[in-house]
């Protein structure tokens, strides 16, 4: 069982690291999510592996899974969402400023003006228009 958990942690971390090292930011986000899973599982494992005995108190039962790592991991999961969201926002801003979602440092500030799918900022005037419409 211990080995099994170790293998899963290894797989999550390995996949995460490989994706973090990719060129496009979408892969990096996926990679960080995988890393997050791996770390959460590891943290939970620090309380050792138990099954069928959740830390919910029932009279007559004395052995429970360790609740402390669980509490740690619970907030870590939720904060992981916050972090992913912030990362996505940063990536969008980067995309907006440099016109690229590559993170290899070679494609920056090459806003592509050719026909095709171009992303631009709509002027603030349009926003006020929209407000007026509403």
């Amino acid at each position, binding site marked *: 069982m211990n080995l099994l958990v170790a293998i899963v942690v290894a*797989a999550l971390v390995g996949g995460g690291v490989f994706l973090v090292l990719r060129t496009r930011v979408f892969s990096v986000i996926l990679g960080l999510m995988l890393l997050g899973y791996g770390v959460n599982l590891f943290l939970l494992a620090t309380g050792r592996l138990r099954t069928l005995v959740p830390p919910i108190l029932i009279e007559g039962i004395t052995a*429970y899974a360790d609740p402390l790592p669980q509490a740690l991991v619970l907030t870590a999961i939720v904060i992981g969402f916050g972090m992913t969201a912030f990362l996505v926002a940063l990536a969008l801003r980067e995309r907006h400023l440099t016109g690229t979602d590559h993170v290899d440092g070679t494609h920056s500030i090459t806003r592509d003006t050719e026909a095709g799918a171009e992303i631009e900022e709509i002027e603030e005037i349009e926003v006020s228009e929209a407000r007026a419409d509403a």
Partner: protein
Amino acid sequence: MNLLWTLLLPLVGSALALMLRRSSSTVIAWTAALPVCAAALLLAWIGPTVLGGDVLREQWRWVPAAGLSAGLRADGLSWLFAMVVVIIGLLIQLYARYYMETSRELGRLYALLGLFMTSMLGLVFSDNLVMMVVFWEATSLVSYLLIGFNREDPDARAGAQLALSITATGGLCLLGGVLLLGRMVGSYDLETVLAAGDLIRAHELYLPALVLVLLGAFTKSAQFPFHFWLPRAMAAPTPISAYLHSATMVKAGVFLLARMYPALAGTEAWLGIVSTVGLLTLLFGAYSAMWQHDLKGLLAYSTISHLGLITLLLGFNSPMAVGAAIFHIVNHATFKASLFMAAGMIDHEVGTRDMRVLNGLWKHMPFTGALAIVAAGAMAGVPLLNGFISKEMFFAEALAAREDGIQWFVPFGAVLAGALAVGYSLRFVMEVFFNDEGREHPQHPHEPPTFMRLPATALALGCLAVGVAPAVFVFTPLTRAVTATLQAPAPVIDLALWHGVNLPLLMSIVALAGGVVLYRLRDRAYRWHDRLPPIEAADLFDVLVRFTRHSGGRVNTALENGSLQRYSLLLITSAVVMGVTPWLRTALPGTSNTLTTLALSLPDAPSTVIAVMLVIGVFATVRQRHRPLTAIIAISVVGLFMSLAFVRLAAPDLALTQLLVELVTILLLLLALPYFATTAHDSPGLRLSILRPLTPSSAWRLWRDGAVAIAAALATGAGTFLMLEQPFTSRSAYYLENSLSKGGGRNVVNVILVDFRGFDTMGEVAVLGAAALGVLVVLHGMRFRLDAGDVQFSRFAERHPLLLAMIARAMLPLALLMSMFVLLRGHDLPGGGFAAGLLTAIALAVQTMASGAEWTRQRLRTDFVRWIVIGFTIVLSTGLGSLAVGRPFLTSSYQAVQLPVIGKIPLGSALLFDIGVYVVVVGTVLVILNRLAQLSQDLNRVGARS
């Protein structure tokens, strides 16, 4: 409290001067000076006690855990120093009122002077070495502001920067030395350290500690080779130079030497380092002063020389020499401050300080001239002035020390430096006031106002009084200061003027005669000096700084190429290497025999299935990374099986939360995906399905990254396995035992979150809210537009399937009810604020997905940022509530309440806390998702219009 008040009063003056900075200069000067007057009176009042041999101490608790107590302590040495600081400070304040009369920044000047005075007093009165270092750094910082007082002057800024970089580096060294001393002695208490001199000198760390402390002292007191900041600091207005660079700040270094004398002195190392540096500084300063044409430059180098003299005396390891050193500290402060004032008056009234321009001022400014002659005489060591007596003592000590292992050249060097001192003192007097060559001055010279002359007059009279009757004026304070310095009874200091014809007197005569000869030969000497290559230590330092900055920049550009991949690779690789290296070196305890226990815990079938699915999910995510939709599906498989893994590992709360977070994250990724997937180079028509890099990664790079990933995987996997094989005692017994009795809940995880570790949760909730606000800030004002040609995408984003919309609407009340249930039962069963908040957020977000952001916004008129604020306020007020009833922050209390249908629930502060968490989570998730949905929505509108 007297000492504390002495410290605080100048600060009061500072504050008043700042507040009244728009008033007339007289008002500012008075308000700043009166508190200093009071401080001086306080010092005078405690004078008899201190001079009677008592040590005053005032103590407060500071950081008891680190063994630090804040304390002030006044003994003979610190009292004498404090008197110098306060009295000269007062005179400077009076002087500055006239010198800076036209300046509009007089308030700032007085504020800084007061601040400096407090730092200086704190330094001398500190009863604790760490506190002393703090004040030491404070003097460096304030002196930076004072030297750079004329902010518009680039020289002033450069001088200030140079001074700060040298003295602050020294301050760091001093901190290191003090920490070493504290470690050796086991205390930072001044008296304990001073009493532990034998222990320190015998300790193996003695030499490093000594060198570090000395570096601090030498940089502060402008000792060779750190002297070069002092001449550059002359860019400060003259009152500041007079105060900092004659009387106080530069004396802090020699004060430190004197203060630490009982702890550090008395060894060969001390003798060798301190006396060598002192002698070099003495000669170098005196030699350089000869060639200066700027009055203040001459005074700066002569100050360096005199500081070297004091250092040399302290380096002799002889009690009598310590007496001479302390005597000279006071004497030098007196005559050098008045000389600076005289230089300032000349500059003020004539408009230049250049000795090549100045001449024959005697007939215009006889009074100033007389003052300058007295003070310069003291500097040269002319009989009947205070400088003569300390110089005689210096000569005597230089001779006496020869027997203690000092080389023959020390007395020789002393006489040479004495001759040079006479030479430059003569220059100061003759070239300014006499040698009338009829040169024109920039302004018509006349005497400065009476009150401007007053401070310099007082100091010159002091020189005379001490010079004529030293035993009357200084015997008691000096003896007391020497006793305090040595922490032992002082030797009898002979302050008589006339000792008969002896060797020191002869040396004085030789020095005087030599000085006169030097002065007579000055023209020839200048010509000789002009042929020498000009070397300025400060320039060398500038070169060093430039070189450092340049090579730092080169290293930076080499490492920082803008590629996140590069940074991640370096970070991960070094993490793996640093994490694994110590492992390979040390054998792990107990691994060899516990490896066999592996067989005992064979994995069961469900666990194996979950694990296999997780691994497959990871591989699928990696392989499908170029097809974002597929990749999102793959990673959601990982997330869902993580949730199952948590179920299997007896963590139902985690399973629930993981499931919900997974849903929210998928929504988030789907909302953001279009903006990553659209680049002209991505295959047209397939924009949402293919996401390849513009330049495909080379095979070598894939192999390299794969190797790093495998290394990281092996390291973490092995780490996890070895950790799991270690024997383990849970730290959670307390929580399990007290969850029901003290927290009133059966779900221990939830009780930990909202009760035992509620403070942590509060921080985490704050982080969540901050992330949401961060997203808003980062995306502020951002709107994406999709090209009209991308019909496929527009249709994708626009379509709201009717069926989904209908089901979602019907589900909403149910989902909300469910989330309430999860929230309320959380204390006893899996659930709680985090899970319930996510559930509510999903229920509302699904409406957006099904019916569009506009539709939802019209029906749900609420600002979710406000939810975050309200939720956090609830969390905070539960904590503050317990403060209000006199319990510690976040103490919980509860009352079980019987509710219909739901059953008995404990209604208490913990539930309120959980509700706060719930509200923050709802707010956070919806703020983020709505903001991203708005990007899409604007995009739709544009698509529809075109």
